[in-house]
């Protein structure tokens, strides 16, 4: 770049460095954090959980179903359809529906 151009674009040149600094700072800060700090920040809490022998986390408030799924009474039906089984994953649901609408069975 010649001298005249440098004079002409002095303000832009300054802004170029500001924008470059922003990118380097943002990407560098995230990369440094991911590299230097453990990704597993919850390791200490997991160790306490194991030593206390508890089977729940304190991520959600006490007294809620998501906190302690083992307290869900199997006699209380939370299914949206009584035709579906209690324990089911998504693949089961697809399989169940495909069986229900199968032309071979006629159901």
């Amino acid at each position, binding site marked *: *770049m010649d001298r005249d*151009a440098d004079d002409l*674009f002095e*303000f*832009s*040149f300054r*802004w*170029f460095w500001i*924008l*470059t600094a*922003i*990118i380097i*700072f*943002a*990407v560098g*800060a*995230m990369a440094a*954090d*991911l590299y230097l*700090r453990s*990704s*597993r*920040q*919850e390791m*200490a*809490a*997991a*160790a*306490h*959980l*194991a*030593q*206390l*022998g*508890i*089977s*729940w*986390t*304190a*991520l*959600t*408030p*006490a*007294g*809620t179903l*998501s906190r*302690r*799924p*083992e*307290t869900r*009474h*199997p*006699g209380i039906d939370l299914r949206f359809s009584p035709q579906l089984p209690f*324990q089911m*994953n998504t693949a089961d649901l697809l399989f169940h529906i495909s069986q229900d609408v199968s032309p071979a069975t006629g159901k």
Partner: protein
Amino acid sequence: MKLLFPGLPTLWALNDLLRQPAKTTLTAAALMLLSFFSAAALLANQALDDTARHLLSRSPSLVIRRLNAGGWAPMPVGPAVKAVENITGVIAPTTRIWGAVAGPDGPLTILAVTPPMESYLKKYGLPLPAAGQAVVGRGIVQNDPNGRNRLTLASLKSAITLDIVAQLPAASEMAAYDLVLTTPQDARSILNIPEKMASDLVLDVFHPDEADALAPELSAAFPWPVHITSRKEAQKQLSGRFAVQGTLFVIILIPAILALVLLILAGGQDVLARRSEAGLLRALGWTSRDLARLQLLRSALVCIPSVSLGLLCAYTIIFYPKIQWVGKLYLGWSQKAPAYCLSSVGAALIMAEIFALIVIPYILASVWPVMVLAAQAPLFLMKGNR
């Protein structure tokens, strides 16, 4: 080194952007907010899911609860342990006395101290609670006017007041934030569990993958009906909750994508509106390639710094240690939430996806108006004809 010193086209593009500072600033702010909200929503969901899965991976393999016609029932300690201790693959069956009780500010979990917990308390220099005493999680601090730390717990049938003698370490917050450790007698009295009975039985298995396979055998070993929950089921249950929230977050992304499309269209319209300027540049000898390069540089100089800054803000608010807003906003804490230290596993991939999702279409779409203008004569453009 050449990369660190901008060429004339880059400076020209910057100069061009700085001629319209308000429009450039607004576009940059919009792109920053777009990347911030998109990344924050996806990162929060991924971080919570991964953290919950990892925490629960250290929990007992199986939880067994006794069931009767009226609901959950306490199980006798001796027969329960005896029923499972000789089953091959079962390790350390332990009964627990625990339950949810009402505290002064909301529901709390009371758990009776077991012999393995005594060594845990000693390790952290905490006293073993005596009758009428409790060691509590970091979320429970009560100060009565007499200067004593007392905690009143209530259940449907009874209430108890305990002296708080110590608090669990700060690092235990995500596991035991609202936990009250007390003697088995105190726990039984508030939970109305008779002597020699327990709330449930937990055990580990020799091969974690065999936990599900052992469930039928364990179930048959008890002389009463039981319900067995495996660690995998607990993880799945919590992940299911986060998956539902994740779906809601994706709904947030739909207007974000529309906003990106609008930004791209506005940028294109801006170029087309300045057709006389493009005609002048072409008359001065600029080729279509030069004009396309100018547009690419203009877009990149606005988009890349603002999206980087938006991603940094999202990363900071999610992964900064000991954040509390996640609990309040996402997880339904009405009282003070625990300090979350979330897992950043997989965060780099999500941020790279968001970066690519916004930057690549924004920069590439800036070229199409130049293609439209390239097909027209410079004089025609200079006159501002369409």
